[in-house]
Every structure is written in C-alpha cells, then in structure tokens.
C-alpha cells in the first residue's frame, strides 16, 4: 500500500474512533435527564452507525481516489453531527446540569473540529475535492 493510502486510512479510522468515543461520552453525560438521554442517545446511535459504516467503506480500499471519496463523505457526516450536540446541549428543555451540558457541547465541538480538519487533510492527501 502507498503511503498516502495508509496515512488516509489511519486518519479516518482515528477520527471515527474518536467520534464514537465522544458520542458515547455525550450519551453518558445526558443520563440525568430522560429528555436529554432520548435526544442525545438517538444522536449517538446515528453517529456510531455512520462511523462504523465509514470504517467499513474505507477498509480494504486499494485505490486512493476511491478511498478519498468514501473518507470525505463519512467525515462530512461526523463533522455535521457534532453540531447537533453543540447547539442543543444547553437548551433548557433538556434540563441538564450546566457541567453535563458543557461536556456534551464540548464533545460536539471536538467532533466537528477534528473531523473538519481531517477532511482538509484527507482532501490534500488523496486529491479528492471536498465537494465530491
């Protein structure tokens, strides 16, 4: 395998593992409120499913362009879904203690920023445009 291929795979798998971890942290931080647990639990399930789907799509790819396309599409999803935690965590409707809400918002912010930066790196490495 070429170096860009290996590096891209490593980046994408790392981001997906981190995204899953942060999503689980967000779900755990929301257990004090039934409404929050419902909302962020669903969001976590969606993040985990898309992250696993992305890992499955990128695994075994031998061609850099194809790997880049699958990686970028998966990374966009985690970049975007991080915004759900970030924007909803502090809503009074969910009734979360401020510390828990901060943890959830932070998890969302890290997911979005980390995925977004990796998007840029993967695009550079593979030569696949971000709008693929």
């Amino acid at each position, binding site marked *: 395998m070429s170096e860009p291929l290996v590096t891209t795979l490593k980046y994408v798998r790392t981001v997906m593992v981190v995204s899953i971890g942060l999503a689980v942290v967000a779900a755990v931080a929301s257990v004090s409120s039934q409404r929050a647990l419902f909302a962020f639990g669903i969001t976590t399930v969606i993040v985990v499913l898309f992250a696993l789907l992305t890992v499955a799509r990128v695994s075994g790819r031998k061609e850099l362009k194809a790997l880049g396309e699958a990686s970028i599409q998966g990374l966009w999803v985690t970049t975007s879904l991080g915004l759900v935690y970030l*924007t909803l965590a502090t809503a009074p409707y969910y009734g979360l203690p401020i510390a828990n809400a901060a943890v959830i918002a932070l998890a969302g912010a890290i997911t979005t920023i980390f995925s977004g930066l990796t998007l840029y790196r993967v695009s550079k490495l593979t030569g696949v445009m971000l709008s693929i």
Partner: protein
Amino acid sequence: MRIFEAFLVEEGDEKIYILLSSNSRIAMSEEEVKDYYGDFANVRVPLHERRTMVNQLIVFLGVLAVWAAVFGGAALATWFGAIDIIIVSVLGCIVLGLLAFLTATIGGRTYASTYVILRHSMGRAGAIIAGIVISGISATLWFAFETWLFGVIMAGTFPGVPGMDVGTAAIWGGILMMITAAIGYRGLSVLSYFIVPAWFVIVTLALTAAIDVSGGWAALLAARPPAPADIATGITFVVGLYIVGATIAPDVTRFSRKPYDGAIAWFIHVVFFMPLILAAGGFLQLLAPGQNLVGFMVSMGMVWAVLLTGVLGQWTTNDNNLYSASLAWCNAVPKVKRVIWVIVMGVGGTAVAALIGYGYGVSLDALLAFGTFLGTFIPPFTGVMIADYFIVRPYILGARDPRTRYPFGPGTEYAVINWPAAVAVVVASFLAWYVPQLDSRIPAFLVGLLTSSLLHIVLMAVSKGAKIRWGVGRWVETPTGW
C-alpha cells in the same frame, strides 16, 4: 454507464475527447469541454467534474432543508389528521419521486442543465423563453422571498439584537447565499454536506420535543383538522409544492457519473425525507394551531439550533434558487458569465427583501402572486421535456440510443422554435390557468403536465406523418455553447 478512460486525439484540425465506457465509446469535442460561462452553464459537465450519488442526494436534501418547507407542511393540518398527513405526504412524495425520476434521468444522460436540455424539444428561442419563465424570473422571486423570510426568522429569534432586524438580516443573509451560488456547484455541495445531516437530526429532535410539550403523541393522534378534505386533494397539494424542483432537477443531476445516480438521489430525498418535513409542519399545526416549529424551538431554549438551522438551512436552499436562475440567464443572454448573473439577480433579490424588511414596501405578496402565476406555466414545459425525451425522440423520430438522443456542443443545430412544443405549452398553460377556475379540485399542475405532454406527442406524430416541418428557423451552437 461507468466511464473508465478518457483521452484526447486529434482528427485533422479538430481535437476530440474519446470517452470509453464498459459498453460504449463517446466522442466529445474539446470545444465542448471549454466552459466560457462558468460552472458548465451552457456545456456538458465534463467527466472529471461529475459527482457521486451521495453528493447529489446531499445537495437535494440541502434544497429541502429549509423552514419554509416545514411551514408548507402546516397547511396539510387544515385538511388532515396525523395519520392522513403521513399518508398524503408519502403518496404525494412518491408521485413527485416518480415524476422527477424522469427529468433527473434526462440530466444524468445528457449532462446538461434544464434550459440547455429544452433546446431540443422547444427550439433554441423556445428554450430561452422557457428558461426565463422556469428559473430566470421565478427562482429570483423565490430568492427574494426566502431572503426576506430569513430576515423575519432572524428578527423573530433574536429580537433587539443588532444586525438581526428583518432588513439587515436579509442583507447579510442574501450576501451569504450569493457567495455559494457564485462559487457554483462546489459551493452548494460543501455547504450542504456541512449542514444537511445536522439539520435533519435537529429538526426531528425538535419535532419530538415540541410534540412532547404540546400534549404528546396521544393528543396528536386525537387532534382533528378544521376542514377535512379527501386524500386526492392532499396528494395534489404535496405534488404542487415541489413540482418546480422536479422540473429543474437536471441542474443538479447533470453532475451524475451514472445516468440514474441523480434520479435515485432525487427519489430517495423526496420519498424518505420530504414526508418528515411536511409532517413536522403538519403535526405542530394540529397540536398548536398558529404556532410553528421555530417558535417552539425558541420557547424551549434551542436558540443556537434555530440559528444554525435557520441560517444554514435557508442558505442551502436559497443559493440553489440563485444558481438555477443564473444557469437560465446564461442560456438566454450571450457573453455574460454566470457569476455576473448571480451578482445581478442576487443583489436585486436581496435589495427587494431588505426594502420590504425596512418597511419601504407593504409586503412581498404582489411578487409572490406573480411567482405563483408564473408557476402555473412551468409544468407544461415539464410535460414537453419528458414527452420529447422519452417518447417523441425514440419512438417518433427514431433516436433510440439515449446517449445520442440529444446531441450538444459547438456546431449543433437547433430549430429556433419547435412549433408543436410551443403550441403544446401555450394551450396547456391556458388550460392550467383556466380549468381550476371552473373546478378548484382540479390541480393546475396536472392539467398543464398532461395536456402539454399529450399535445406535444400528437402534434409531433402528425407532423412526422404528414411530412410537415416542425422546426422553424435554424440556430447553430457557438463554441461557447450559446
């Protein structure tokens, strides 16, 4: 068709791109690949710019991800209960999915925009007029309306905050929307990728929260509409909501790698996601008449989510309006680049929205009435486009191969006007305007669509049989695709 190799060869003075696929070989001239107007407004989308099915799905979902669509769904609650809202939404969206599967396929086969595609069925001058009616004016009016609505949502969500009054928010919102429309399809894609997954999750969560605070699912199922109507009325209403989007689907699906990529993307987005949006509006209207999801979200403290979905959701939709308008104007006026049209139409639309916002006009009602009036004339063009590509060309004119059915590129000859199509559109437009006045249960779009397609097929068959020339005049495509 998966193209696996492309190379340049020289034949005499001409340079030709040869594209090899698993089952065919297509020659594309070098000039055809040149893009004078920008973002392939008047030429085919070249191989290296074609996108995945996922990309087109996301762009279509970006068009759908807008508060105005949720508000549109609220109208269903006037006629239906919760279960029936789901039934009419799903059935209406299936009709839309099937209808636009056809228009989207034309885009995926020809790699050309809606207005360029219409050159063959309507004639070159006919395509100019069609483009101006379908998108050149209509889409610009909708751009102005949605920019104003953006200002209204911002002002309602952040009252008293500097820069968030209707007029000022309309100005900065309009500028944002112009940026991605000016960048082109890349801009639309990147923004849609960024917001669409979050938008749909946030709206779904906000909807369940709003139902929760409004009495729950039991109250929703028990709620009755004030003026019950039959299912057919609901289905036609749903189809009418997005019929223009179905018509201009080729503006996006021309970027398809495989012929059916865009069509499948369209079908998925409209059948699986549009009912959710309509239900979001309809359910809340049933539970709390007069209130909308934005108001609920603000009252539940989801202000940041409103800001995100309001700004970026409206942005991903309205930039598409401007984008399609700019493509239509490039097809209509020579030598003016697409980005100039984005600026001209964008500044004009934003100025109208801001002036209304600052109180210099009563409302946008007059403009919207004009836009709705023009909307009556769009389905007849859709009917001609579908009938021409799928029936007239292959079965009446003998162009069976879908890849060569609509040739484009420098030197391609078109009629100035195809009279059977023109007659079909004029007659169908009149009937679409007149018949619903006699019986309001008959939907205008259905009259327009069916009449124009049938009339076009019949007139073309008669012309062919009687050896009457159907194309009037001659127009040769220039090297820039005009």
